[in-house]
């Protein structure tokens, strides 16, 4: 039974890690704390749901659609709103972007309610119930796909950041944006691309959420909180840390569901989060700041 709890926790946790990946990238590069991230996940979910039910595409093919559409939406939102906070000093910037993102989450949530109604939607595929058993532990196919997709995007993001010119520019900006801009890197472009990629990753996570669970306009806050928990567990702004943080959250939740009550699984994550915030604010693996 312990093996099953662990496996379930890890497979769900991979999805949590993916949800947090975009938020962490955006925060790490731009210092924008986008608490409307959960709403972007929601929109990604609806994009996939639409492509699945109207075009009859396989849900895993719709990842391309959710990725591209959220990339564009992210770029648009950055240009329209967040680019105006770039010049502020860091502490003010974090606070103002937090407030602005809250306003944005309210707008997106209510727009979604208008367009798509409050009904719960989900993507049901023929292979939804398929699972195979190894050593008495069940591996549901859609949950395994979470891990595959999360690892794929984590590796792809790492490669992008290490091998491409744009990726290197992003890393240079993280290290020292002033020096980077003196070297001819356009900070605005770096921020724009990072924000758009972060949104696109939220979109991909949205597809997985629509397959694993269900989507509805009010789901945003739950997923934003999960992403924030994972981000704090893994260390603010650390990209490999997010996957580890996601796995820890997933295992905590699945253990809570089994040993206590599934109604409290979200609470367990939040309590863990508060404890880390109080005792180890640099994250479980982060180095202590000076």
């Amino acid at each position, binding site marked *: 039974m312990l093996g099953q709890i662990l496996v379930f926790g890890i497979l769900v946790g991979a999805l949590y890690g993916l949800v947090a990946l975009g938020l962490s990238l955006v925060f790490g590069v731009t210092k924008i704390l986008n608490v409307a991230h959960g709403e972007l996940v929601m929109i990604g979910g609806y994009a996939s749901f639409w492509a699945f039910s109207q075009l009859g595409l396989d849900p895993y093919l719709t990842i391309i659609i959710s990725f591209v559409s959220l990339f564009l939406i992210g770029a648009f939102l950055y240009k329209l709103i967040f680019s105006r906070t770039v010049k502020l000093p860091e502490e003010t910037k974090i606070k*103002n972007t937090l407030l602005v993102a809250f*306003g944005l989450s309210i*707008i997106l949530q209510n727009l979604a309610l208008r367009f798509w109604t409050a009904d719960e939607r989900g993507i049901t595929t023929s292979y939804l119930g398929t699972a195979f058993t190894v050593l008495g532990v069940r591996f549901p196919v859609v949950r395994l796909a979470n891990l595959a997709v999360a690892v794929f995007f984590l590796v792809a993001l790492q490669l992008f950041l290490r091998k491409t010119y744009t990726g290197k520019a992003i890393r240079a900006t993280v290290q020292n944006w002033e020096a980077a801009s003196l070297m001819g890197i356009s900070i605005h472009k770096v921020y724009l691309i990072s924000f758009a990629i972060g949104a696109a990753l939220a979109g991909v996570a949205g597809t997985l959420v629509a397959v694993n669970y269900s989507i509805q306009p009010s789901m945003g806050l739950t997923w934003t909180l999960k992403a924030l*928990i994972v981000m704090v567990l893994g260390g603010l702004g650390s990209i490999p840390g997010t996957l580890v943080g996601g796995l820890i959250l997933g295992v905590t939740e699945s253990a809570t569901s089994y040993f206590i009550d599934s*109604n409290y699984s*979200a609470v367990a994550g939040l309590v863990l989060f508060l404890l880390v*915030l109080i005792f180890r604010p640099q994250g479980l693996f982060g180095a202590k700041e000076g």
Partner: protein
Amino acid sequence: MNKKRTISIVLLMIAIIGLALFPLLIKKDSTINLVILILLYMSLASSWNILGGYTGQTNLGHAAFFGIGSLATRLLWTGGFPFLPSFLVGGLIAVALALLIGIPAFKLRGVYFAIGTLALAQILNITVGNLFPEMSYNPDISNYQLLPRYYLFLVLVILTIGSAYFLVNSKWGLGMMAVREGEDAAESLGISALRHKLLALTVSAFFAGLVGGAFAYYHVSYYLNMPFSPEWTFDPMMMAYIGGTGTIIGPIIGSIFFVGLKQLLVWNVGEYHLIIFGTLFILIVLFLPGGLVELWKKAQTYLRRGPGQKKTTKPQVAKT
């Protein structure tokens, strides 16, 4: 200056007397309920403003304090305790909860307090929903009267705004604003940022708890976790920002504006008010950090100087 002060005191008196007489003159329940809603938001937004506006600490979990106050009051009161002690206990429990999160979170800078309070409110929202899944009914429904509720909210508004006024005009209030403008600078002058933040949080949470208690007294039946839901944080926060954070009048204007616009839009086009409010809120945070109060001041200066002349005063330092 003195003349101006007299005028504002007279205006304040007229407003209070007007509000006190209002339900006796207009006996329509729906109108009284509407004014109760405005009064509730006024005290909630003003209590948020003490910490969020004057001390610069963004509290994203005000619903936790509002909710815990309403929960404690409701449980004690429906359990047979007299109302007033239950009401006070609600406020005190909110303070205890605030210190529980505030002491650790304020030792850290920046976003930690904001996301910590957000998580706290959500923990309580889910937990209370799990513990009390059933609707809570007013046990004494046959004797329900609107007027005592109305006056409770009126007294609470006066207490909240009055306390906020005296607090921010005291030495402590100046310290709070100094912390907002720059923690390091304030600390270097011997102002303990932690103590000032905790004081502001205590006062803010106490009144939020009391408003929650009044809500528990006012509402006939509701789910006990409903006062913990995020809109009890975001609506008052938006009101404070739209009116103008860090001013006494800001949350008052903001809440009248919010409820008014909500009514107007519900009558005309359906529930669009949150989209409009969200947009307005973003615009204000980005371009007009002082809210409607600042807009009014700008308009006044403009009218006094005339359009042709140049500004002579120094530009205001943007609030952080």
